[in-house]
């Protein structure tokens, strides 16, 4: 369920880093808690994001929730499919429904994130 090569935040985001680029998304647990997601608000390409600061928001039938960036850097890509198909976030949050790609400015930050095992303990799923 939770890929071992991803790193996780306490706010239920994940990041997968490949060659200095981090792909960011929300976790299966997050989408399950939010319920049916109806709208996703993402930053523009080129904007700067900071670890722990708001990156965008997701809106479900129940509530609007902030997404916090797991890493600092510059947004290099945004998942455009989510604007027309927000339901993908419920269906495949760890895969096709990634949110943004970030060029990392401080790769050392990754050490502050959780492993898959730690995250599952954190959410009580292990």
């Amino acid at each position, binding site marked *: 369920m939770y890929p071992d090569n991803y790193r996780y935040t306490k706010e239920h985001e994940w990041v997968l880093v490949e060659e200095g680029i981090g792909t960011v998304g929300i976790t299966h647990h997050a989408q399950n808690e939010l319920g049916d997601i*109806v709208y996703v608000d993402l930053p523009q390409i080129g904007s700067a994001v900071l670890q722990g600061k708001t990156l965008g928001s997701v809106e479900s*039938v129940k*509530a609007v929730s902030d997404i916090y960036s797991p890493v600092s850097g510059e947004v290099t890509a945004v998942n455009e499919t989510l604007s027309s198909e927000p339901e993908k976030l419920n269906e495949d949050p760890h895969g096709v429904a990634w949110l943004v790609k970030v060029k990392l400015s401080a790769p050392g930050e990754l050490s502050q994130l959780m492993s898959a095992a730690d995250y599952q303990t954190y959410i009580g799923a292990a």
Partner: protein
Amino acid sequence: MIKKVRSHINRDEGLLFERSSPGKRAYQLPELDVPLVDAAAALGKENVREQIEHFPEVSEVEAIRHFTRLSTHNYAIDLGLYPLGSCTMKYNPRINEQVARTEGLAWAHPYQPEPLAQGCLEVLQSLESALLEITGMDAVTLQPSAGAHGEWTGIMLVRALLTSRGNPRKRILVPDSAHGTNPATAAMAGYGVEGIASNERGMIDLAALERAANDEIAALMVTNPSTLGIFEENIVKATEIMHSRGGMVYMDGANMNALVGVTRPGDFGIDVMHLNLHKTFSTPHGGGGPGAGPVAVKKIFEPFLPVPRLKRIGEALAFDYDRPQSIGKVRAYYGNFGVLVRALAYIMAHGGPGLRNATLDAILNANYIRKQLQPYFDMPYTSPSMHECVFSDDRQAKLGVRTGDIAKRLIDYGFHPYTVSFPLIVHGALMIEPTETESKDELDLFVDALISIAKEVETDPEMVRKAPHLTRTSRVDEVTAARKPVLRWVAADER
């Protein structure tokens, strides 16, 4: 379209667009008694159209019946208990309406000269005095049109005062049990928002507040009682911490129905607050009428209050616009005057002891419901309840039924749903506020309904998941409606 041999009032109602037949009219205009103007020549041909596409053409009686039938689809406080938590849906006494229709008040014009509007100004002055006595504050503006407008006005006052002291500061602290509008208010007023987690009793964590309150924090926005229906026992200490760091404390007064006549925000250290007259003081709301969100402040904020301010010159009252430090106007004219009249009527009809009794009854009713329902629903925060009680759906969720499903089933039992899924710190919240205006008989009906639903969840969860079953329209697909909204009616042959 919905076709029927004849329209029974219990059946659903089609759209007026679908009733249209060409040439029908619901009006007759008198003969033209001014020169005919060629619209195309006056406005430009491109701005004039002969036909409005699909504009419904119906007769007068068809239009009347359509809207009258729709009006019977409403649920209203006049039909039964309306337990929407944090909204204080109390009965609106008819005397309020009678007073608001007094000729001199109902027909007053905003441009009426002040010497001819002294009665109206006296109403405003009397209401200001009553609200100051109730809140323990020093000055009040009646102008904001609703709660969120009041919040924004209040935070702009904080900004104005701090700016006059040299630094508006950067962020506002908002506890996770605060009203959902508070963070939005802070952001609209140009502040960053910083959350503070509640402690295990559902109250502000003073240690967390100590850590967070630094010289970049403009204010703490607190809702007291919080959206958990819990009184902040350490509110005095919390205000002392903020004040010692040069910050302010704003109180969201949405839950003032638990405090009126018992305790006063001004006495427990609040600097700025708003009141929801449409909640606490019984004026219609929830589609039934406009609101009013007066903002009450301590003396240091008075120079910054919106213009105009009421002032007395000799015996007479007048509006004062000469207030150089004011944040300016926040609304046209003088607030929702008709709402202010109703609130004053309510306050005067009750008097001080009556208002206090209303508060005590509101707390009693909420605790009666809490006690009756506690065997059937989980309650994560068990601190004493004030005017509302908050359960979670944890027990029912194990059987696949969530708070939203229980709320829909409640409609089948003839009640308006409680507040669903809020506050967010309670998993699957059921937030129930009965208000003081409900009798024990009505509360018992409501309690019986929820107990019955709790048992249905055990025996037939699927049925509850598909509720409501007895309404004109069955379960609405809220997800598709939000994901793929249809914002404009399209004729059947064009779909």
